[in-house]
């Protein structure tokens, strides 16, 4: 089996597309389909970035009207953010824009070297599981697909950054359904599938956040696998304290739960990404419960790796696509 393999920068990270040959007549060759998907992903980045003044997301957040017309992509992104908050009981909250900016994440960190995790850990606060924001502003977000509108409470800004990579990977996966097999790697959040992937699954390797080594390989033929961790976006604030991009909604401060990184499996990349963030914010004990169904991997502060649910088995993991 031959595959087309392309890597490119997108959404401030590195994306990768792996695509086998088309199986249905009329489908474009792999390199053309991948080029089309790449253009779409770059457009997705431009339209949904909170760092671009001309993006649709910035336009939504700066519009004072309670109900705003939006194009389907933005509607999908806001709906995904709303779904993630509902699914996780408010732990994966996309309405914390003010808090993330207050923590120091106001500009894109693309290309910037994050603060090393080993340097940050000694000065991190006491570990505890995160909790939902009591106001749960996300409940006020309403998406009307038929009307093409988004409604949100006054003053609430939406940051789709927590879900957009998984969503984008899933949408590209739809384009690749008629190919032998594919992996859409949106900076570590992967959508995997293809008509012949069941007999030849990808061995997805999991990278350790402290050592950079590959500590585990998970066979995946269909579905999603994603990783959430502190080390990718970490910085030191002006007062000398360490911050990162995963906030505890209950405090609005960076979450230090005793876990450095979580990898989760899901029926698609969006669910896997949401589960990974949910598990990480829940701390070691809560993560075991979150990951029990589809499986996952956690890395504690001391670097210890633990497998959960179906990932404990070395057998191939075949996740059937189930309508969410």
């Amino acid at each position, binding site marked *: 089996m031959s595959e087309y393999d392309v890597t490119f920068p997108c959404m401030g990270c590195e994306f990768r597309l792996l695509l086998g040959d088309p199986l249905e007549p009329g489908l474009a060759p792999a390199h053309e389909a991948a080029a089309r998907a790449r253009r779409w992903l770059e457009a997705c980045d431009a339209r949904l970035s909170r760092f671009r003044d001309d993006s649709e997301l910035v336009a939504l957040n700066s519009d004072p009207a309670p109900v705003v017309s939006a194009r389907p992509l933005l509607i999908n992104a806001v709906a995904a953010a709303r779904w993630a908050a509902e699914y996780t009981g408010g732990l994966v909250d996309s309405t914390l824009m003010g808090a993330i900016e207050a923590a120091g994440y106001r500009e894109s960190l693309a290309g910037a070297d994050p603060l090393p995790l080993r340097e940050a850990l000694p000065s991190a606060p006491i570990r505890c599981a995160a909790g939902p924001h009591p106001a749960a502003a996300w409940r006020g977000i309403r998406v009307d697909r038929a009307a093409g509108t988004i409604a949100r409470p006054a003053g609430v800004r939406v940051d789709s950054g927590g879900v957009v*990579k998984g969503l984008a990977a899933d949408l590209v996966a739809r384009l690749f359904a008629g190919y032998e097999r594919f992996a859409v790697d949106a900076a*570590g959040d992967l959508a995997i599938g293809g008509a012949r992937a069941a007999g030849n699954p990808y061995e997805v*390797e999991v990278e350790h956040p402290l050592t950079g080594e590959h500590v585990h390989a998970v066979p995946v033929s269909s579905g999603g696998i994603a990783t959430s961790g502190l080390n*990718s976006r970490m910085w030191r604030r002006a007062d000398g304290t360490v911050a990162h991009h995963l906030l505890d909604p209950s405090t609005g401060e960076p979450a230090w739960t005793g876990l450095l990184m979580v990898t989760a499996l899901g029926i698609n990349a969006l669910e896997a990404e949401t589960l990974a963030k949910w598990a990480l914010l829940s701390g070691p004990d809560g993560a075991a419960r979150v990951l029990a169904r589809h499986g996952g991997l956690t890395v504690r502060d001391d670097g210890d790796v633990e497998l959960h649910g179906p990932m404990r088995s070395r057998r191939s993991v075949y996740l059937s696509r189930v309508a969410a």
Partner: protein
Amino acid sequence: MTTDAAGGAAKRGRRKPRSFPTIVASLAVFAVVLVLLGARVAAGHDPVLGAVHIRASRPEIVRRIVRKVIVETTVASHARDKGGTTVSSSPVTSVRSSGVEPARAPVTRSS
């Protein structure tokens, strides 16, 4: 004396060979040798060239060389963030991998 008489009788019994049968016999021997040599040369056994060993025909060896072509393009565009700082983008790399050399495995990491 007896000996001389016998020697004279033997000398009398010898005859000078006739030229015609000798020539015919010589030509016949030459023709036979010529035909034999011609047959050997026609069969590939040329005595001038020495022994010829006809090698058994072997199947043609087809060696398929699988090439891995890597096209690397550096994108000159730059992403500009809100603060006006310019961040250079990383290069775009594309590879067509074959079954002989499969693509490196996908990796999931913190993002």
